[in-house]
């Protein structure tokens, strides 16, 4: 359920100017609105794009969070690669690797 909350937060950031405003001005209170584990809070705050990918955040949501956090395209792809090396294969969802199923 918690992965759902991580994705919900990003979904709101991608589409809601008010959420974006809170991201700019009071990120901690925005995080506090969602039921997140410490690891998830860390990954969002840091941000650890690779870890978020490994957690199973849908790439179509994560892509925009990476851009919001200033990751240029190649850096964003590289962050996911490094995430797999550092944290292991994607843990859940559509983005698990075929050989991992």
């Amino acid at each position, binding site marked *: 359920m918690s992965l759902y909350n991580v994705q919900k937060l990003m979904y709101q950031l991608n589409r809601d100017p008010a959420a974006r405003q809170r991201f700019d001005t009071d990120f901690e209170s925005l995080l506090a609105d969602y039921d997140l584990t410490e690891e998830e809070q860390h990954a969002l705050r840091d941000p650890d794009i690779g870890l978020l990918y490994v957690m199973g955040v849908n790439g179509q949501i994560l892509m925009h969070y990476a*851009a919001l956090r200033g990751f240029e395209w190649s850096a964003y792809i590289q962050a*996911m690669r490094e995430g797999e090396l550092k944290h292991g294969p994607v843990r859940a969802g559509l983005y698990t690797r075929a050989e991992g199923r």
Partner: protein
Amino acid sequence: MSLVFAGVCSHAPGITGRKERADPVVRDAFYAAYDRMRQALEAARPDALIVIGAEHFANFFMNNMPAICVGMGEHYDGPIEDPQWLGIGPVRFPGAARLSMELIQDLMSDVDLAYAQEWKFDHGIMVPLHFLTPRADLPIIPVNINCQGPPLIPLRRCYEFGRALRRVCAARPERIAIIGTGGISHWPATPDSGRINEAWDRAFLKKFLANRREELIAYKDEDIWREAGQGGLEIRTFVALAGAAEGHTGELWFYAPIPIFAVGCTVAVMKLQADERG
């Protein structure tokens, strides 16, 4: 009147957002195919354009995910993404609210669907319209088939949905065009972004262009996912378009893998018969 135009094209955000990083020769040939599609669309003199897309959590999320949703708005704004990231500035497209409402009502005889009076276009619709209606002067009816957040409806029902669209359009006095936009094989937004299974794409396109329903709906999601990537699940939009153009075959106007666009770039148009063009 029935459908006056039917075709498919790619919608990947890199097509506009990373255009300067592609091989200009291939890119420009791809853009030229989009423009040929624009000219064919305009020549069909449509009153409205239905866009069957596969949006990416711009409007719909796992709190209330519609399998199929049809827009019913007065207008639609986009892109929801950062315009600089996508390479497309803010645009407002006219809707066709009354036509949408009547089509939706009629579709409900055959299909369970959701509707939305509010809808922000993401790259899945923005990129095709950037090329096909550059003046944003053609009323748009967006349609979304959930291709991103499983469970997804089976391909058989996508084809049936296309058939239903055809039926309701045939009952209208308006001239209606329709496009499907999605995959084909790709692994977007993954470390494998840029991977494209050209052989898989060409085999799929052969079936699509021949509009062989049984072969199209025989694909299994697990196989698609393994061989064509999670982005390959977007063939739902192509299969729905094939259903809308049942009985007609298509012509491939462009196909080439363009890795920096992260998809096998495709433009194809169905050969609707002259008696249906009016």
